[in-house]
C-alpha cells in the first residue's frame, strides 16, 4: 500500500470488515463463525459479502447456541486455529460466560502453560437503538474483571481497522466490544492503515484543567463535551482507554498529574464497575494528585429502558458530561 495515497472516507462498519478480510487473507488458520454471519451478512452487516469471497469453510453460520459455538471456538484455538467468534450482542454472551470464564480464561493457567487459546470474540455492546434491556447493556466492564483475557473497545475507525489483527496475534483470548452505535460512524482512514497496538490508552484531545476518561461509544460524546467546555474557557484532556483489561493507568495518571481533576464517562453501571476500578486505582496510586473529588457519568442503575426518552435519559449524554465536568472544575477551585 502506498503511504502517500490520500486517505479514504469510510465507516466503522467497513473498517471492521476490512480488518476481517485482511485477517482471512493473511492467515489460512483464521475463520469466522457466529449467528447469521454468513448468508445474512451479519446482524450489523459487518460480514456482508465475506461468505461469497471466502466460502462456507471459513465463514460459518452457527446454531443459536452461544455456549456451543464459543466452546467450539475455544477448541479450535487450542488445536492451532485462529478463530474469530461473533456473538451478536454482549447480552447473549452471558450464555457463553461459562466457556469464556471457566475455559478460555483459565486453561493456560490450569494446564501449566501447555495450552494457548488464541481466540478472538467480537460482540456488539451498548444502548441507544431502542432495543430494550435484553439487547442494550454494556458488559465490557464485567469482562474486564476476568484475569486471563484481554478486553478491547475500539472507538475510532482506525481502531476498528487495526485492533483485530493484533488481537489474533495474541496467544490468549481477546474480546472486542463494538459499540453498535459506532457502526455508522464516518471518517477518514489512511490508505495504508493496518494493525495498531492494543497496549496503551490514547490522549484524543489535550488539555490542562481536567481529564475526561472514557472509551467506546462514549468517546464521541465526551469529545463534544470537551469542545463545549473549551468554549467556556475550560481546557480538558480526553483519554480513550481503548483496552479495558489490562488498564493503561500510566496514561491516565500522567494526565491527572497535569490536570488534578477527573471525570470518568462509562456507559456501564456505577456499582462494582470499571469506573469504580479506575477511581480505586487513582486513590491507590495518585491520591495526592487530586484537587477535587472524581466524578462519574455512568448509566442510571436500571435495566436500559425501551422508550426513547427514557433510554436517552439513562445513558451518558453530552449535557450530563458537561455538568459533571463543570462541577469538578468550579466547585473545587
Amino acid at each position, binding site marked *: 500500500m502506498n503511504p502517500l495515497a490520500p486517505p479514504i472516507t469510510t465507516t466503522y462498519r467497513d473498517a471492521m470488515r476490512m480488518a476481517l478480510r485482511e485477517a482471512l487473507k493473511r492467515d489460512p488458520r483464521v475463520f469466522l463463525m457466529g449467528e447469521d454471519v454468513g448468508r445474512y451478512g451479519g446482524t450489523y452487516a459487518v460480514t456482508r459479502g465475506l461468505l461469497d469471497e471466502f466460502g462456507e469453510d471459513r465463514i460459518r453460520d452457527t446454531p443459536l447456541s452461544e455456549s456451543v459455538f464459543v466452546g467450539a471456538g475455544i477448541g479450535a484455538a487450542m488445536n492451532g486455529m485462529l478463530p474469530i467468534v461473533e456473538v451478536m450482542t454482549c447480552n447473549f454472551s452471558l450464555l457463553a460466560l461459562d466457556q469464556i470464564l471457566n475455559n478460555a480464561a483459565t486453561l493456560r493457567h490450569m494446564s501449566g502453560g501447555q495450552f494457548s487459546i488464541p481466540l478472538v470474540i467480537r460482540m456488539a455492546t451498548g444502548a441507544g437503538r431502542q432495543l430494550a434491556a435484553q439487547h442494550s447493556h454494556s458488559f465490557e466492564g464485567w469482562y474486564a474483571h476476568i484475569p486471563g483475557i484481554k478486553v478491547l473497545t475500539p472507538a475510532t475507525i482506525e481502531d476498528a481497522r487495526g485492533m483485530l489483527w493484533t488481537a489474533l496475534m495474541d496467544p490468549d483470548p481477546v474480546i472486542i466490544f463494538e459499540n453498535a452505535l459506532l457502526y455508522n460512524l464516518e471518517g477518514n482512514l489512511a490508505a495504508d492503515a493496518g494493525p495498531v497496538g492494543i497496549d496503551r490508552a490514547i490522549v484524543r484531545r489535550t488539555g490542562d484543567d481536567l481529564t475526561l476518561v472514557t472509551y467506546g461509544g462514549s468517546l464521541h460524546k465526551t469529545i463534544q463535551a470537551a469542545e463545549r467546555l473549551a468554549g467556556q474557557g475550560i481546557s480538558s484532556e480526553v483519554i480513550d482507554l481503548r483496552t479495558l483489561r489490562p488498564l493503561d493507568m500510566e496514561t491516565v495518571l500522567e494526565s491527572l498529574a497535569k490536570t*488534578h481533576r477527573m471525570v470518568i464517562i462509562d456507559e456501564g453501571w456505577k456499582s462494582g464497575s470499571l469506573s469504580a476500578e479506575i477511581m480505586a486505582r487513582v486513590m491507590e496510586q495518585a*491520591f*495526592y*494528585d*487530586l*484537587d*477535587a473529588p472524581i466524578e462519574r457519568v455512568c448509566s442510571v442503575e436500571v435495566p436500559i429502558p425501551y422508550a426513547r426518552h427514557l433510554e436517552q435519559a439513562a445513558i451518558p449524554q453530552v449535557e450530563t458530561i458537561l455538568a459533571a465536568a463543570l462541577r469538578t472544575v468550579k*466547585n*473545587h*477551585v
Partner: protein
Amino acid sequence: MYEFRMPSLGADMEAGTLVEWLIKTGDTVNRGQVVAVVETQKGAVDVEIWEDGTVDKIVVETGRKVPVGELLALLRTPNGASSAAPEKSREDTTPQSVQKPTITNTESLHSEAAPVATLSVRQRVSPSARKLAEERGIDIASVQPSEAGAAISRADVERVAKMGASGSVTAKPIPPDWHSQMRVAIAAAMSRSKREIPHYYLATDIDVTRVVSWIESENLKRSVSDRILPVVPFMRAVSMALNEVPELNGFWIEGESRPSSAVHLGMAISMRGGGLVAPAIHDSDGKGIDQLMVDLRDLVTRVRSGRLRSSEMSDPTVTFTNLGEKGVEGVFGVIYPPQVAIIGLGKISERPWVEGGQVVVRKVATITLAADHRASDGHRGGLFLAALDRLLQEPEGLR
C-alpha cells in the same frame, strides 16, 4: 486501639502546636492524665487523655502544628480491639477489661462535652493542595479557601505562594506571638457569636447586702490565705440557679438546644498583657464556696502561668464574667459559642434603695444575662435572675 487526637479546646480552635509529650511509647496512662502540652492561640494547654491504656505509638513529633482531629498517638486499651499488638498486651489487659464498664460518672460528664469537640469544622484541603503546600514550604493553616466553606485547592496554595514570592505578603499571615493570635481567636469566636446567635439581654438590680455582709463576717473568722473573694458566693448562686433553668446551661449545636446536666462554670479571666480566656470550673453546682475558692485561685494562677488543661478549655457550659471588679455597672455579654448564655456581675455599690416605703442605703449589684433566644426565651431568663436574687438573699444556703 484508642486513637488519641488533637482535641478542640474551644469552638475557635483550628490547630495547635504540640509542644511537649509527657508520655512515651510503652507508658501506662490513666483517664484524666495530662499527657501532652499543646500551644494554642490561647497559650499552652495541658491536654488530658480520656482512656486508660498503654501508649502504643506516638504519631506526631513535638514541634509540629496539627489541625484539630488529627491523630496524635495510639493507645492500646484494656478491652479495645488491640489488633495491632494482641500478643504483647494480652497478659496485662485481661484483668482490667472487667473493670472498664464500672467507669460511669466521669464518662457521662465528658460525653456530654463531646459535641463541642466536633463543632470545630476541619478545613477541607484537597490532597493535591496539601502536597503542593508541603513542596513549597507553605503552612497549610495559612492558606484560605477561595470562599468560606470551600475546600482549599491548588489554586489557593498557588496564590499564597505567589504572594510569598513577590515579597508583598509573607506566607504566614498570622504573627507568631500569642497575644496577636489570641486576638484572632477572640475575633473569630465573637464574630461568629454576633453573626449566629440572636442574643437577648436582661438586667436586674439585686440587693446583695446580706451576701456581702455574710462573706465579710465569714472572712473575719478565717486566716488571710483562706479568705473568700466576694465573687465566689455569686459563682455558687449562679451555678445553683442554672439548675432551675437548665436551658441556659449547655449548647446550641446543629440547630438544636443541648442542655448539659452538669454545670461547668466558665470563668472569664483576663490575661496579663491583654486577652481573655473562660476555662471551666467543673461541676460548680455541686461545690461549696470553699472548694470554689480553691478552684478559682488555682485556675487564675494557671491562666496567668499559661498551664490550663484541655478539659477546662473545652468543657464550659456557661460563662460568668465579673467586670464589676473593674468598676462597670453592668455587663451585656457576648455569648461564647456554642454556649447559650453569659452572666455578668456588675459593680457592688451602695445605692439608695426603697424598702417598705423607706429610702435606705443598700449594697446593690446589677446582674445581667445575655442568652441565646434560640435556646431560651426571655421569660425563662427572667426566672433565672429571680432565682438568683432569691438565692442571694439567703447566703447561708450558699455555703
